[in-house]
């Protein structure tokens, strides 16, 4: 057993640090440091800087243009991004649809979609949730009907998706659609790639309680999708969706980013000299330490060839609880000065309230973070999973 990383890993970590110190787009960095909102272009610039470095496929095998990094390297990479305060990676291409395509897609699909993901030339979004199917994803109703027109097969899509993150920026959407309503509900689901420019698609913003436009409803009315956009077999979509869930597990704990926030909170609480807040921050530091070493334990098991199963639901549950808790303590630190609200876009003028700088976005972050215990399988669902698959009850 040893805590320290190998010299090879340390070299790698320094390389990442060096990149983040020097090549990470300056304008994005500055905005982040000032707490200013990012534009779509900023986000694209940031991802393209990773593409340029060859690091976009940080979790992909070499044969598909990925880095082929070890789990430890992936961990280090994600951790350093968080510690440096980088914007979160948009996961829909590189962490979600990409691995599904290179695992279950055909050669044509791989050639067509993977390079654009690695270059961040295509912005993907995820079409899973529907108004009637949240935690019970398999009950989805969006219908895909196979038709033949002029000798070519198409799916005609009707239905709607909701909570679609950044659909307003997206070029493509990967969807779970119902191709069969007759049997078990999981068995009639297929995995389909849809061009967002297709006629019949309408994107409507959903404004969240922080005042942000991050999520959307996406409506499909007789949208015609070439059958060649089907991934794998018809009716196997549920299998691919579950594969994807397993794939996105790492990094979900967000330890690096949380540690960065924690350091700031430690300074603030000591400056305020508030013993109660100091004790709460200390407890949170212990919680983060425990989470970090839980992730490292799972990582070690993975490196040793083990297969951490539903245990990794802990990472989702505790990781999101900690992310929320951090924002709560910033609000507590801010006191009354949290109340004047600029929202995600700031105060819309140069005049800011007179409170300390950290009070300005304390509440917009708090409100934004309420979603993390709900999405990606709510924490209640995660506990059901642990109950069933770990405890066996």
């Amino acid at each position: 057993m040893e805590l320290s990383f190998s010299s090879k890993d340390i070299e790698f970590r320094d390389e990442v640090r060096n990149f983040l110190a020097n090549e990470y787009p300056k304008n994005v960095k500055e905005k982040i440091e000032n707490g200013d909102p990012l534009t779509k272009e900023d986000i694209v610039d940031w991802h393209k800087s990773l593409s340029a470095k060859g690091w976009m496929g940080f979790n992909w095998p070499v044969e598909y243009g990925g880095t082929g990094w070890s789990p430890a390297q992936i961990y280090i990479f994600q951790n350093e991004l968080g510690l440096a305060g980088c914007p979160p990676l948009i996961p829909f291409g590189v962490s979600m649809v990409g691995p599904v395509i290179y695992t279950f897609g055909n050669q044509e699909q791989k050639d067509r979609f993977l390079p654009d993901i690695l270059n961040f030339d295509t912005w993907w979004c995820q079409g899973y949730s529907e108004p009637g199917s949240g935690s019970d994803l398999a009950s989805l109703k969006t219908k895909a009907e196979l038709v033949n027109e002029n000798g070519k097969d198409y799916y005609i899509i009707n239905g709607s998706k909701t909570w679609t993150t950044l659909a307003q920026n997206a070029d493509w959407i990967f969807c779970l659609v119902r191709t069969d309503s007759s049997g078990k509900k999981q068995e009639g689901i297929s995995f389909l790639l849809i061009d967002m420019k297709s006629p019949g698609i309408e994107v409507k913003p959903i404004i969240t309680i922080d005042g942000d436009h991050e999520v959307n409803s996406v409506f499909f009315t007789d949208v015609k999708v070439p059958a060649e956009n089907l991934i794998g077999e018809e009716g196997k979509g549920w299998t691919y969706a579950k594969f994807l869930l397993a794939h996105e597990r790492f990094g979900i704990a967000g330890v690096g980013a949380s540690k960065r926030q924690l350091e700031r909170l430690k300074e603030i609480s000591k400056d305020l000299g508030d013993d109660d807040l100091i004790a709460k921050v200390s407890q949170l530091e212990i919680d983060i330490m425990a989470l970090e070493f839980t992730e490292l334990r799972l990582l070690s098991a993975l490196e040793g060839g083990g297969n951490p199963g539903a245990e990794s639901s802990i990472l989702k549950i505790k990781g999101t609880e900690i992310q929320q808790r951090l924002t709560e303590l910033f609000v507590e630190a801010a006191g009354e000065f949290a109340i004047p609200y600029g929202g995600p876009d700031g105060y819309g003028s140069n005049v800011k309230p007179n409170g300390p700088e950290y009070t300005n976005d304390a509440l917009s972050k708090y409100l934004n973070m309420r979603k993390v215990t709900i999405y990606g399988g709510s924490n209640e669902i995660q506990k059901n999973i642990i109950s069933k698959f770990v405890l066996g009850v």
Partner: protein
Amino acid sequence: MNLNFSDEQNLLREQIQKFCNSDYDFYDRENFINTESGFDPEKWKLFADQGWLAMPFSSESGGFDFGPIELSILFEEFGKFLVLEPYLSNVVLSGYILDNSSFDKKNEYIEKLISGEEQISLAYMEQNRNYDFKNITCLLEGTDSLSLNGTKNLVLNGSNADNYLVTVNHNDVTTIVVINKDTEGLSINNFKTVDDRRISQLNFENVSINTDQIVSTGDEAEQLLKDAINYGTLCVSAEAVGSMESCYLKTVEYTKSREQFGQPISNFQVLQHKMVDMFIETELCKSLLYKSMIDMHENNDSKYRSVSALKSQVGISGKKVGEDAVQLHGGMGVSEEMSIGHYLKRFISIDSQFGNSHFHLKKFNNS
């Protein structure tokens, strides 16, 4: 001992409930959030016509002599519907100070306040967290011609006020002066609050003040501030209790109608027990509200201590109830178009006002 409301009090509650039920539709409310004032001037007029703005004033000032119990009823009902109108800043905070001061021109301000003609905000906060109205840095200097310099932060409903009651330091004596919004040397920055109210900061640069603008000084001024803030703390706590009740009821309703896995999610025991916890938190806070409002009504020595217990608990419980309500509403909970997230925002705002939960726990312990 009697913890039942009087018939008159029950009638008042019914009257307010009737108004909120018929006139306070959430989607209607949404429209006023984005107007400049942030509330509905017609409703404010209605409040005046109904006599609600006169409620706590003494009969000599043209009021009804209603006290903390009636105000708690009003705010509890307001809380259920997230009423936006600036009752707290005008009637409770400024109204209390004016009504109980020895200021000789107070009636002219009170009259316009009761009639809804003019608004008046209390400016007492400066730079510190959990600000406690002392250690004032706004300096009122001079003897014959007085001049004011300094900054006041977080003035509730500041953008709608015609006048401000401003706490100043005059020769190391706490002094309250009344200042018109159009006074030379006063500049104002307005902000929206997280819960869609208005809040301002006032900058005074060599603002000249006449002695007839002095509302109160010294011990009287400090006692007035202490009691006005205690009153305000009671009222927002009562509001929070009303909001908590709405939250758990709306959550019960939502979970009964939301189906997942072939059944209403209210069938899941974990959600049931969470809702029970929300109910229990609400009831316990309501009990503390009863203690506080009666202590204030009876003017018992324990009134500050009771209010601190209430505010401390409401801070914790409101946040918990609001967060659980959002969680149980799932994605809908974080959607701006549903009311549930607005309750959460109000809870956070209330916890942050007049000293947060831990501040009041300490105050409770030290008193």
